[in-house]
């Protein structure tokens, strides 16, 4: 697997994800871990477009699911994960184990999504 050479290679394409095995257990089932390369992280801070934010606020009158936020957070988390996978590629790993997610509010209307795990090489 070729590690990316620069920022221009860091595409946001989720189709790159299947190259790397991800798991939130300690091992990759069906493979053996040969070496551990340390913690890899990826994070992103996103805010909603003001119009959609207001629409979500209106939807909130009746409560229930807020689809606009669900989608936003899904996209942002995919991007955070992509950054984590890029970190893993840069270190020469081909799998990330014990992945965890964390979310925090950094400002009104903005959330930070954070993904971290341990990069490993598997066979």
């Amino acid at each position, binding site marked *: 697997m070729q590690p990316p050479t620069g920022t221009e290679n860091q595409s946001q394409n989720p189709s790159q994800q299947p190259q790397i*095995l*991800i*798991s*939130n*257990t*300690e091992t*990759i*089932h*069906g493979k053996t871990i040969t070496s551990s390369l340390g913690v890899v992280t990826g994070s992103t801070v996103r*805010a*909603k477009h*003001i119009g959609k*934010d*207001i629409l*979500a*606020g209106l*939807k*909130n*009158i*009746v*409560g*229930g*699911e*807020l689809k606009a*936020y*669900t989608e936003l*957070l*899904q996209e942002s*988390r995919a991007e955070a994960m992509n950054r984590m996978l890029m970190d893993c590629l840069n270190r020469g790993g081909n799998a990330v184990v014990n*992945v*965890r*997610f*964390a*979310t*925090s*509010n950094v400002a*009104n*209307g*903005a*959330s930070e999504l954070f993904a971290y795990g341990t990069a490993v090489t598997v066979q």
Partner: protein
Amino acid sequence: MADELAGVIWILVSLTFSIGPLLFSWLYGNHYQSKKVKQLLERESAFLTQHGRDNIHSISNLIPPKPIANCGLVMANISVGTSWWQTMIGRLHGIIGGNITMFDRVLNYGRKEALQRLREQALQQGWDNVINVRLETSRIVSSSNQGKSSAFEILAYGTGIKHQ
């Protein structure tokens, strides 16, 4: 006379815009949320009767253990909000303390829905089981709607496994 009439109309209009959404929230919100909960329970029981067993587990090794061919991450999320009415009542309730049933209900719905989405997602992606399922909850603060409502995001994730 005309001035008085205009005054009355003005008061009515301003009342509609201030209390109207709250009334709407009370009258329609409860109905809407109950409908969603009912739909979710139906989906859940339909899934369980169709497959005969649950395919998500919070343990990291299945009991009894089965050989595993490959694995991958599965995740599902939902963001839910309390209605304006629920937020108001919840705050009032917060003064007395005790079990705030309004928030309970919304969060319970969110968790169940997230887990159900995880089940469906796992099935769709072709995994036999999902192990090590974790749930995470966080609060979303909206920039345009401060104080009127609270929204939460619930994320469910786990490792999908395929048996040999």
